[in-house]
């Protein structure tokens, strides 16, 4: 075992940290979040130029063949900078699923477009009553002469507003199939809207919407891909916590009440110490999750759920207390700590929430 970064990983981390330091001042982040897509397309082009969008595409499909731990370095830094671009959905989750398609070579053009920053793809799995169950869906696929059509609805598709394509799960002859649907396909209504973290999601309403089949028996690959994406959310949450802690510690050093700086009040400094301990535990659980990603499905799922539960609780504590320790000013929309809190709230209900992960852990680890 060796927890140190490789030389390549160190370079990757330096490059993303530099990007975040230069590009993601809080004011810029707010400006990007206020735009129509919740992030800046120019940044997305920079991601492509830096190779980040092909990082997770396998080498035999023209990508860099990176590992999830590499992507986690990016996600953590994006968390620190509140970068709203759909890196995880498009360049990891959907790119990964396309690379695992029943006929991956057919997906080469779309994978190239993802790697080049031209295509944004979002995964649509959640439905009105699915509660994060990837198999608890009602959307139906129907074979037609030209391929398939889909009918049904999907809600709160992460990064769904900017997507040109969706990967959509639907029932297909007793299995869960995964289909590619163009955002401008006939019979598809896309309702785009803002989420608490100032990003953009979408609801999809499909009525005989033409779709092409990517994976006929998709449940197992979907579960793996979503677990991988969840771990990257853990990494992003870590970045949020790290930033919120630093900002808070800095504030305690400067804000004065009762004739001294807040840093002289032990109850407050111990709170920051607790925040640190929770964040470090989250980092350990992230690494443990990464180590289990290629183990059997049950070991992987339990480790990812454990990491998510840890991250959700730690994130709520760390970023919630960052607001608390700021006092009134932490409640102001123009203060950064609240935005870290909101991102944590969103992370904690993307592809699973605390309850769904805790239940899955129980089911997998207790007879």
């Amino acid at each position, binding site marked *: 075992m060796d927890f140190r970064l490789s030389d390549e990983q160190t370079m990757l981390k330096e490059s993303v940290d530099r990007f975040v330091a230069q590009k993601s001042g809080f004011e810029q982040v707010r400006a990007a979040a206020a735009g129509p897509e919740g992030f800046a397309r120019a940044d997305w082009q920079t991601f492509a130029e830096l190779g980040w969008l092909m990082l997770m595409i396998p080498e035999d499909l023209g990508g860099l063949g990176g590992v999830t731990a590499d992507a986690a370095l990016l996600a953590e830094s994006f968390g620190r900078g509140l970068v709203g671009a759909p890196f995880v959905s498009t360049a990891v989750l959907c790119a990964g699923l396309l690379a695992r398609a029943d006929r991956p070579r057919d997906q080469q053009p779309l994978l190239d477009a993802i790697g080049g920053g031209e295509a944004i793809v979002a995964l649509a799995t*959640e439905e*009105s009553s699915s*509660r*994060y169950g990837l198999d608890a869906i009602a959307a139906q696929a129907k074979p037609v002469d030209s391929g398939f059509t889909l009918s049904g*609805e999907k*809600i*709160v598709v992460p990064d769904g507003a900017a997507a040109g394509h969706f990967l959509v799960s639907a029932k297909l002859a007793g299995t869960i199939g995964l289909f590619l649907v163009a955002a401008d396909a006939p019979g598809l209504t896309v*309702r785009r*809207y*803002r*989420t*608490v*973290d*100032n990003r953009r*999601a979408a*609801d999809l309403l499909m009525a005989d919407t033409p779709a092409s089949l990517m994976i006929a028996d998709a449940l197992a690959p979907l579960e793996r891909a979503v677990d991988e994406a969840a771990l990257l959310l853990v990494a992003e949450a870590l970045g949020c916590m790290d930033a919120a802690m630093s900002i808070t510690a800095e504030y305690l050093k400067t804000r*004065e*009440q*009762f*004739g001294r700086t807040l840093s002289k*009040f032990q*109850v*407050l400094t111990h709170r920051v110490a607790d925040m640190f301990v929770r964040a470090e535990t989250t980092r350990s659980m992230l690494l443990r999750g990464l180590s289990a990603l290629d183990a059997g499905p049950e070991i992987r799922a339990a480790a990812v759920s454990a990491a998510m539960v840890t991250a959700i609780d730690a994130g709520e504590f760390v970023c*919630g207390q960052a*607001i*608390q320790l700021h*006092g*009134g000013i*932490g*409640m*102001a*929309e*123009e203060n950064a700590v*609240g935005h870290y*809190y*909101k991102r944590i*709230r*969103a992370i904690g*209900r*993307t592809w699973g*929430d*605390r*309850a*769904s992960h*805790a*239940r899955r852990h*129980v089911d997998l680890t207790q007879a």
Partner: protein
Amino acid sequence: MDLTFAKEDEDFRLEIREALRGLVPPDMARRTRQRVHPTKADLKLWNRILYDRGWSVAHWPKEYGGTGWSPLQVHIFEEELAAADAPFLTYFGPRLVGPLLYTFGREEQKRDLIPDILTGETLWCQGFSEPSSGSDLASARTSAVRDGASYVINGQKIWTTEAHYADRMFCLVRTDPSVPAQKGGFSFVMLPMTDPGVRVRPIVTLDEGHSVNEVFLENVRIPASDIIGEEGRGWDYTKFMLANERITNAHVPRAKRDLVLLKEIAASEYGASPSAARDEARRRIAQLEMDLDGLEWSVLREIINGSKNPAIASGLKIVASELQQRMTDLAVDMIGARGRIFYGEDDFERNDLPGNPGEYAPGLAARQLFLRATTIYAGSNEIQRGIIAKQQFGL
């Protein structure tokens, strides 16, 4: 010891319930459930409706326009108001400055100011916190300097709730910079928000709502008679107002209503058939209900046989604020992935809501976010814990 409600109190509850039936306009009731910040129109209209029945300041002594009900009856009345989704009237006139005026104000102040508090015609705001004086209120610097028959006020207040609704502000000011706050350095003055020297800047909070403001006071000249009560007693009056509000701030009536709503959300989201998710939601609701029962009985103890113990009041504030947060946290958790959607507090006016949610979802996101402030405002919970340690144990 008698641990039961008297028959007349139970009868009183039923009378009030009957009298309130149909009194809250349905759209106002819906706004009360779903908005974390009440609208000015609702505050004024509901104040007027209550006033017409003699109930706008039920907790006041009868001679000033109250009902003369017992403290327990007032509590029962407030529970029934919350159960009917009636807006919680503005704090500043009926809860804070009103009692200050009828207790310490001069006769002409009572005569001139109290009638418009009863009707809601005049809305007030409270000038307390300053940018560099939050928890440390005694360090406030806004000054009122005597100049002939006037005071001239200069300074800045912050987190002023409803300053943008208010006609008047009662304002904690330093009238004697040579002595500490606790030794007579502070007074309360009142000033018109229309004065050209008053500038109100909105502060948008985490939830994207606007209820608090910065208020800049520049050479605001008021007649010397507009000092409230006596000069130099500002700190005593502050303690008087906070002590008055120790029970109201626990917001038990609203919390009991929210518990009912939580059960409705659970029934709608999880259906009637057993599932692990439903079990967990029900367990969490049960825990909140037990905690609320504890809070309610602590409040009843204070209402019936008030202890005047500041440590008890601080404890109520800690328990109540954390409970309010946990209740909205659970509400958001129960709506699943829709908990990620930013449902603003006016969203229920729309009929094309994203996520196709239940009617209880709009406003939840904003409410959950804004309630992060409950552990900060009215004396942060850290300050409250310090009070308990000091007052109860001399630590």
